């Protein structure tokens, strides 16, 4: 598991997984889209608590390796400010056959989304911003149900 403030380069990462024993490579890229819940998004900011995110991410990858007969599995997640269209997260897995590669890739991205201490703040075209999924967790957010204004 890696956290990076630099652009994620999926082609280069895929190259690192090259293995003559692999009959399948499955990659997932999460991109920054220009809208969310009816609002136009200008850019996005990821806050990552790296010491725990890396350890927890490595656990998720180890779980995937023990659940499925994989050759390799990797995950890279961005931190900092991202523009529309940039890659926010990349998962790559290789295996002898495709079924386990699809399943493991899905397992890793699903677990990363729900377990890693990573938060995203959307900056909207309209000028305000809000923590995604966090609107309901702060008394602030109750005053601004769509977003925490800042």
């Amino acid at each position, binding site marked *: 598991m890696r956290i990076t403030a630099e652009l994620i380069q999926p082609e280069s990462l895929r190259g690192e997984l090259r293995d003559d024993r692999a009959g399948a490579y499955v990659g997932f890229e999460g991109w920054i889209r220009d809208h969310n819940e009816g609002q136009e998004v200008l850019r996005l900011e990821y806050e990552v608590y790296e010491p725990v*995110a890396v350890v927890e991410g490595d656990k998720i990858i180890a779980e995937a390796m023990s659940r499925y007969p994989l050759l390799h599995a990797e995950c890279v997640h961005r931190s900092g400010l991202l523009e529309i269209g940039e890659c926010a997260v990349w998962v790559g897995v290789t295996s002898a056959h495709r079924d386990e590669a699809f399943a493991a890739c899905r397992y890793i991205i699903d677990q990363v989304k729900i377990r890693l201490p990573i938060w995203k703040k959307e900056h909207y075209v309209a000028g305000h911003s809000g*923590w995604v999924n966090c609107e309901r*967790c702060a008394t602030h957010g109750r005053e601004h149900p769509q977003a925490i204004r800042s």
Partner: protein
Amino acid sequence: MTKNITVRYFAGFREHAGIDAEEVSCDVDTAGDVFRKLQHRHGSMEPLGHCKVAINDEMADWDTAVGDGDTVLLFPPVAGG
């Protein structure tokens, strides 16, 4: 029993508290007690199950015991990916 702990806030919790960490002395047994005692600081109205906690940089459960000198990290609902 009163314990001296460090509490760290992240994302929306930090913005609500206005600081990223503070030392507190409070009568707590578990991580869940810390979350409830400091509700006025992090501002969360979420059920505990929607948020996460780590103690000394290790993921923990809300019923994990908190010891004197521990650092308790309060995580709002996560949103990676």
